[in-house]
């Protein structure tokens, strides 16, 4: 424990309080702290405090072979690990001039969208719980588990899939896999009215989210906000569509936006995105059987693989926003530098501090969760 957290400080009696949210899972996905100063029930100042999940991934990656790092990257964002794996692999492929086979690209998109659905379900649950509604959380986690079942069957791991590898993916689909994906999609689709009924038309939630944590589009751009949080201010930008990677340019999907920029708008954007992910997955399930071929480009022996001198900046759209990897090779068998640009780095620090200031204490948790921050992305 940090000294300032346990030293008893005696304050003169006043209306000023300091309240700590966190660091033990303060309602967002990982250990993180937000210290707020209160006057009555109004927040007068806020300070984000990270580092509780710092494991030094960027440094660790410099000491490991290009391939070995695939076991590290999914840990940088536990609820949505696939974008981490894909973004890292895309960087290595760009540096090494590897052509990812088409089948592998489709399989990657399938995972990315499954991961997005899982992450959004997780977020819905947590977000609802901030208003005292725990049923969406139980449902969200139970339904997310069905997607984890799919990941387990595909990759052997429920959370840390370690399934993408520079050049493609590590295994082909098991027999009958797409049918089970399709069944799971049917099931999740059938659950959407339940979620609408329970959460998205539930006035308890709607009213607690509306008008809370308002961010204008100008502010969002100013603060470098991306992803659903940016789209909730009316800017229809999505890396998948506007800076396409893999085979996203062959897919049909909309980029949902909301105008209000409040916690409710952010929730609505995620709800709409989940449907778009289902739409994408339907296309993948339909197309993938026609796409034959290898699942991985040939790669050299991982123990003796030098990548040419160079650098690359790859980005993907994760459930939290724009995720980017800046990877530098000095011509060796290990990365010279890997910089992980987690989308949460923007909205979990400056934005959170700003939005919380002036809010009432009962809305702090709602604001934190509606931003969908992923602390390990910040800490790395």
């Amino acid at each position, binding site marked *: 424990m940090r000294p300032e957290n346990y030293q008893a400080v005696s304050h003169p009696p006043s209306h000023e309080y300091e309240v700590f949210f966190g660091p033990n899972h303060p309602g967002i996905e990982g250990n993180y702290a937000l210290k707020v100063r209160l006057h009555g029930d109004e927040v007068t100042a806020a300070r984000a405090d990270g*580092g509780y999940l710092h494991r030094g991934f960027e440094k660790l990656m410099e000491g490991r072979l290009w391939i070995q790092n695939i076991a590290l990257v999914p840990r940088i964002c536990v609820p949505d690990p696939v974008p981490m794996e894909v973004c890292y692999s895309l960087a290595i492929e760009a540096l090494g001039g590897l052509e990812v086979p088409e089948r592998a690209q489709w399989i990657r998109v399938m995972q990315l969208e499954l991961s997005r659905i899982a992450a959004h379900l997780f977020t819905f649950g947590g977000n609802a719980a901030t208003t005292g509604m725990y049923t969406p959380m139980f449902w969200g986690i139970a339904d997310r588990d069905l997607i984890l079942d799919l990941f387990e069957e595909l990759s052997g791991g429920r959370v840390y899939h370690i399934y993408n590898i520079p050049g493609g993916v590590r295994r082909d689909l098991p027999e009958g896999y797409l049918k089970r994906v399709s069944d799971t999609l049917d099931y999740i689709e059938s659950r959407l009215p339940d979620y609408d009924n329970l959460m998205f038309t539930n006035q308890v939630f709607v009213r607690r989210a509306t008008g809370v944590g308002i961010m204008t589009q100008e502010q969002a751009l100013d603060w470098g906000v991306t992803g659903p949080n940016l789209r909730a201010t009316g800017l229809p930008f999505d890396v998948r569509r*506007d800076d396409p990677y893999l085979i996203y340019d062959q897919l049909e999907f909309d980029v949902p936006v909301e105008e209000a920029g409040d916690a409710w708008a952010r929730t609505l954007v995620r709800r709409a995105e989940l449907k778009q992910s289902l739409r994408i997955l339907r296309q993948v399930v339909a197309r993938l059987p026609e796409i034959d071929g290898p699942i991985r480009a040939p790669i050299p022996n991982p123990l003796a693989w030098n990548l040419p001198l160079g650098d690359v900046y790859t980005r993907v759209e994760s459930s939290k926003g724009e995720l980017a990897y800046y990877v530098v090779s000095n011509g060796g068998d290990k990365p010279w530098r890997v910089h992980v640009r987690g989308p949460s*780095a923007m909205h979990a620090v*400056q934005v959170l501090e700003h939005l919380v200031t002036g809010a009432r204490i009962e809305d702090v948790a709602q604001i934190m969760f509606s931003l969908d921050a992923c602390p390990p992305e910040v800490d790395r």
Partner: protein
Amino acid sequence: MTPTDAPGHDVTTTLDFLLQEVDGLRTRWVAPRRLRVDLPAETLPALLELLKGRAGYVHLSAISCVDWPDDGQFELVYHTWSYELNVLVMAHIRIPRDPGVYLSIYDLYRPAAFFERDIHEMFGLWFEGSPDMGKFILTEWEGPPPMRKEFDGEAWVMEQFGWQEYRPEWLTEIEAKGGGISKRPEQLRGDKGEDGTA
């Protein structure tokens, strides 16, 4: 890369034309939608101002820092994105490793505050004019900035933490027969074996 591989003649032409206004730039299209710019450190603010003001580069995606101790330099890379042109411009500058001081671009881009603070914490660079250079992640760390190449993270870990000594029965049995662990994993890391094999 020929301009035809880039996102469209008009966009590349716009950018190429615009960037002529700044002296001392070297530009290269490294991929469609990826323009690399190398420039002297002192020119960077002018470039960013131009990009932001005239080409819609309102989004600072990241600032990356790379340590090049052999060159005695830090490389700073400013990744900026225009929602109008849909092109990423990566501006590369090099600054001397010692004293490792550069200007903050916080007045142009608010996200710079986070990246500059992070780079200060991890590499020890100082950004003049950055709003907050206080510790964020490494609150209880008193050692050198860990992302610098001279900091050997693995050696530090080895020093700090022990290896678990296991005594399973099977190992005792094998040792009784004259066998035992012939190569520990730590022998592969860092030091080379007696015969020089890694």
